[in-house]
């Protein structure tokens, strides 16, 4: 196996809302091409972790490195440039409701590329087709189902061919089959595009199906207690909280 290249490195990170520390002393590495799972119980700060990584909220302490660049130590233009190479799928899709799906996907392209309108239309159709929604370009977000909104959200996140894709609870609120299809889509995209995927979830089925690496945030200890491949973690962990989480509380 070749030596993996670190894509995102978190070092000594503390996240807090005002005086309230959510998590402290987080240190882990996300390698290029990983499907990295941020897992933990509800309210442990998974989504906050993601907002820090995508530049929406600054950490109380510690650093986030993209490659060799200290993300929060850089100035705003550098941060913008880094985050433009990342795509984000929000929990609810967060599609811009006043625009059609095609316009949603076209906006980043219009903003950051010099492509002609015809070319952009082709890209939009390709991205929609990739998430299995070809032909839905003229629909408004409110006219399609929640699962479709999520997939359209992925299409928009992929618009600029990002190097890293973030997913906030991709399978929350989806039926098992749609959730499975979304997992397959994430795997497929990683395999074919080599994109690094960071997935925030507590969905066990997804964690084992797609995760190649992970970090477990323990809400009671307010820090991370394990990092590594989820299946290996399950086989080797001696930590009762993690074992309970990974086995759905069933005794083995």
């Amino acid at each position: 196996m070749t030596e993996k290249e670190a894509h995102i490195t978190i070092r000594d990170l503390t996240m807090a809302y005002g005086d309230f520390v959510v998590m402290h002393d987080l240190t882990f590495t996300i390698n290029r091409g990983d499907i990295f799972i941020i897992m933990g119980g509800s309210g442990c700060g998974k989504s906050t972790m993601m907002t820090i990584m995508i530049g929406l909220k600054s950490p109380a302490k510690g650093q986030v490195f993209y490659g060799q660049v200290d993300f929060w130590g850089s100035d705003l233009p550098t941060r913008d440039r880094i985050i433009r190479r990342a795509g984000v799928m929000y929990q609810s899709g967060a599609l811009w409701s006043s625009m059609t799906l095609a316009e949603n996907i076209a906006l980043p392209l219009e903003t950051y590329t010099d492509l002609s309108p015809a070319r952009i239309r082709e890209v939009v159709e390709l991205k929609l087709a990739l998430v299995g929604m070809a032909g839905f370009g003229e629909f408004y977000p409110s006219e399609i189902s929640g699962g479709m909104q999520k997939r359209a959200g992925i299409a928009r996140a992929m618009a600029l061919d990002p190097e890293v894709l973030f997913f906030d609870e991709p399978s929350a609120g989806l039926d098992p089959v749609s959730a499975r299809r979304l997992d397959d889509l994430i795997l497929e995209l990683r395999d074919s595009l080599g994109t690094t995927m960071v997935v925030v979830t507590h969905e066990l089925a997804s964690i084992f199906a797609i995760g190649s690496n992970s970090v477990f945030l323990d809400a009671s200890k307010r820090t991370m207690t394990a990092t590594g491949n989820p299946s290996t973690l399950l086989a080797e962990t001696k930590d009762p909280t993690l074992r309970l989480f990974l086995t759905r509380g069933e005794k083995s």
Partner: protein
Amino acid sequence: MSAAGELLIEQPSQDTLQVILSGRWKLEESLPSADVVQQRVAGTPGVRNVVFDTRQLADWDSGLLIFLINLREFCTQQKLPIDDSGLPQGARKLLALAAAVPEKKDARKAAGKVSFFTHVGSETVDFFRSLGEMLTFIGDTVIAFGNLLRGKAQYRKSDLGLVLESCGGQALPIVSLICFLVGLILAFIGAIQLKLFGAQIYVADLVGIAMVRLMAAIMTGIVMAGRTGGAFAAQLGTMQVNQEIDALKTLGISPMEFLVLPRMLALALMMPLLCLYANVMGILGGMVVGVGMLDIGLIQYYNETVKAVNLWNLGIGLFSGTVFGVIVALSGCLRGMQCGRSASAVGEAATSAVVTAIVGIILSTALITVLCNLLGI
């Protein structure tokens, strides 16, 4: 129908207390409280065990469970073991379920009493912080506007068009109605006084100057604050709730340029036009009273108005209108961008936008009036 829930306490042996439950233990019945048992336990020392007999129990729901949980809490405090084998199986399971996850002691919100001075202090700090936020927002808007002038702003022309339409053409009916009536009312009030001196013709001066210089702008501003400012706040607030604004930010698109700029621009462009239109409607309203009630000729009224209203009046009116437009757009967008992440926060944002806008309009009217007075125009 069996009787309401009843409670009987027996003591079959020296160290055992038997709680006999009978009848319907449902929430809507008036049920005995656990205090009865507690008093009995306190009154009989030497009790080592509590057992239940529920053979006479007809029907039960949460009412029984609340009783049992209270009793259990008391017994745990007294280190008194409870034997729940006499309880219905369902109740036993639910009791176990309620005890499965212990209460998180620090999860309850601290409802500590805040002293008067702390309250005043934190309110003051909040006030200055919100003032700071407002200034930051205005600064961001200016930067965005600078980008627009340099042709570097990221926004969609079609968005601007939509906002122009909604705060321009679509506002005409309500502005017509309000300003026509305000003109009419002004004329009525003026007519009653002026008639005393036989100076009815000056109704035209009164209505003309009042409308053109001040009232048209204020009334249009207030209508737009309610109509458009509130809508801006609600739109941006909902986008905040939906994480749509986060999605813009992570794409590196400035929400200030993409969302705030078109709205600000549209209102600043449309307000003077609406004011101009409102002037005409107000004068028309005055004319209806003047011609219809005071027997002033149409031409006479027109000539008097033209004579009374000079260009300064018109200029001040249109300037005020533009300022009000900026104020309404600013407060609408500011409150929308500050919106929290819940449905009630959107409502608060809309309300607060309208209030901020109206306060801003009145304050700036006062300022403009004083300035004009000092400048002698």
